[in-house]
């Protein structure tokens, strides 16, 4: 017993010995009438583990490079201004935290892609509760691992795509958490390329010039409870495996090339509880395989779902299709996907045995949808009486629409999603 106490005392001593560098971490104050007037000077004087407390005021210091593991805390949102010339915060060290700043007017050159906050090759960086206004890129991460981007408000107001960067831009990163950010008016709200094992939760991306969310080659990510509204071209995601999307809302993406979600070459994905409301196209699947979509709501879209014939082994089950002009359409006669127990508001069948499942299979593909897919100009005949007649007769005797494009067990009542 006595022996072990001595052992512990020894251990404690050793620990103190090796960690005393952190033990003496200090807080450095920056601002008027404080120890330092400039953040750069405070950074130069700081050491790993220090906290730099910046009081409110306007700081025009050009490019601030953070190459130590420090916590940068803003009090009452001090303003860091890049004067449209500089990248504002460059984080080149791991274990950095940036909290409570207002970061504005970064430079805008396409050569170096300056950002309001840019993380270079770092781990464990936290960027929280900042306001980013009128920057080229908002928050830019490259080779970042295990970083948290949380509760930031990011907005820009450029009119043209080529003069604007992305709100949250991540490249070759891993294990990120992008949570609770609001992104408006950038080119893409959230942009991922080669980003893996990350979670994107509770973000709001609206009125962005191009896409609300845009990712490529970003495997094993989860997108949960995000809200994408009225972005120039909606949301487009490509060339990715194992994506989970749950409880997201995709709303009001109107335009010829705007999609609630565009899935290009995605596979092994799971979509559940998403809401597609008032989009020209709710979800567009192109070359996408083994996707399971269940309990999603497709409400008042032009096309609820466009499932190209190059998609296979997708399961579309237990969804609500309500008030769409066309529920589903495809561009060929080959169908290798399954529809199961969806609710279709255009279903006119009956349920004699009262098991809440219609007794007659439902063909969700209307003749007019097929005609329009083959012949887009035919959309000009939309709402023509002739078209309604053709549709009705096709419903009774299908001849042009693919035979196996069918929901064998359509639900009688909606799921209230």
């Amino acid at each position: 017993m006595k022996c072990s106490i001595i052992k512990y005392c020894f251990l404690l001593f050793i620990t103190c010995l090796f960690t005393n560098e952190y033990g003496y971490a200090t807080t450095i104050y920056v601002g008027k009438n404080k120890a330092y007037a400039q953040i750069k000077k405070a950074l130069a004087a700081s050491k790993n583990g220090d906290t730099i407390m910046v009081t409110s005021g306007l700081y025009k210091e050009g490019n601030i490079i953070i190459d130590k593991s420090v916590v940068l805390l803003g009090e009452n949102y001090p303003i860091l201004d890049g004067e449209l010339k500089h990248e504002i915060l460059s984080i080149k060290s791991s274990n950095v935290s940036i909290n409570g700043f207002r970061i504005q007017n970064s430079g805008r050159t396409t050569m170096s892609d300056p950002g309001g906050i840019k993380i270079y090759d770092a781990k464990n960086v936290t960027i929280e509760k900042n306001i980013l206004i009128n920057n080229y890129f908002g928050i830019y991460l490259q080779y970042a691992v295990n970083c948290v981007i949380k509760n930031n408000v990011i907005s820009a107001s450029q009119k043209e795509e080529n003069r604007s960067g992305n709100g949250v831009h991540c490249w070759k990163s891993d294990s990120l958490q992008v949570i609770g950010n609001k992104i408006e008016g950038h080119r893409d709200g959230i942009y991922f390329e080669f980003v893996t094992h990350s979670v994107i939760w509770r973000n709001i991306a609206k009125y962005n010039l191009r896409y609300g969310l845009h990712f490529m080659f970003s495997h094993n990510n989860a997108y949960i409870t995000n809200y994408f509204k009225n972005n120039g071209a909606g949301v487009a995601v490509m060339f990715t495996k194992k994506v989970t999307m749950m409880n997201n809302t995709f709303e009001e993406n109107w335009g010829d090339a705007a999609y609630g979600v565009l899935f290009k070459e995605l596979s092994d994905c799971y979509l559940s509880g998403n809401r597609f409301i008032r989009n020209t196209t709710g979800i567009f699947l192109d070359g996408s395989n083994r996707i399971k979509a269940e309990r999603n709501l497709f409400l008042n879209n032009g096309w609820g779902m466009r499932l190209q014939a190059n998609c296979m082994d997708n399961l579309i089950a237990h969804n609500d299709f309500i008030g769409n002009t066309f529920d589903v359409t495809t561009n060929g006669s080959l169908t290798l996907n399954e529809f199961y127990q969806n609710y279709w508001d255009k279903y006119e069948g009956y349920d004699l045995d009262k098991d809440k499942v219609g007794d007659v299979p439902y063909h969700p593909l209307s003749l007019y949808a097929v005609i329009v897919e083959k012949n887009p100009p035919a959309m000009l005949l939309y709402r023509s009486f002739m078209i309604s007649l053709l549709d009705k007769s096709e419903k009774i005797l299908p001849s042009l629409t693919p035979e196996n494009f069918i929901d064998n067990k359509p639900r009688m009542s909606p799921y209230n999603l």
Partner: protein
Amino acid sequence: MIRILKYVALDILKNKIIIAYAIMLALFSWSSFGLEDNASKGLLTVLNIVLLTVPLMSILFATIYIYNSGEFIELLVSHPVKRSKIWKALFTGLSVSMIAAYVIGAGIPLLIFTNWDIALMMIAVGSLLSVIFVALAFLSSIITRDKAKGIGTSIMLWLYFALLFDGLVLFLFFQFADYPIEKVIVFLSALSPIDLSRILILLRLDVSAMLGYTGAVFKNSFGSDWGLVVSFLLLSLWILLPFYISLRKFRKKDL
């Protein structure tokens, strides 16, 4: 002319069919706005009604009315009144009453349930359609003295514009799918007042985003302010041309 117009208008009102027509339209519109949970869906239903029933009612009622007032016309001709005045008065009387019925029946719910620019567009287009088909009725009833033939012609005209024309357009789409026919189609659709009206209204709605490239071509040609003027001019031409031909025939006709 004003006095003849008054006689005609009173006569049509006494007929009560116009009133029934207004009530029918009102029932249709109120119920479709009431049943659909969102106004734009209701609007599309009303659009269908307007594009089908308004032309049918206008052309049939006007044709039959002209045939029935043959004796009245003969009586007027024996008086010192210009023939063209009689014909114009008849035309104005019928047009005004059709428009009134439409505006009261469908216009009021439109103004209440949808936003103003769409409602006004629908009212303008519906009124123009009423007058266009009254004009066509005048043409078909002056061509032949035979009542059955005249009414038959009217029904044929309605069928052609409401149904057959779209079928032909669809056929053309398929036949020339490999060619850039958008501009031709835009030109073609101007050849049917019903199609032109339908597209004019569709361009005002949300669904315009679904019209794709052709829609964009259409929007460029007819959606701009100038385009709007052009399309209304085209619709007016659909009134003036048939009526003018019928007027010339009526002047020279041996009653």
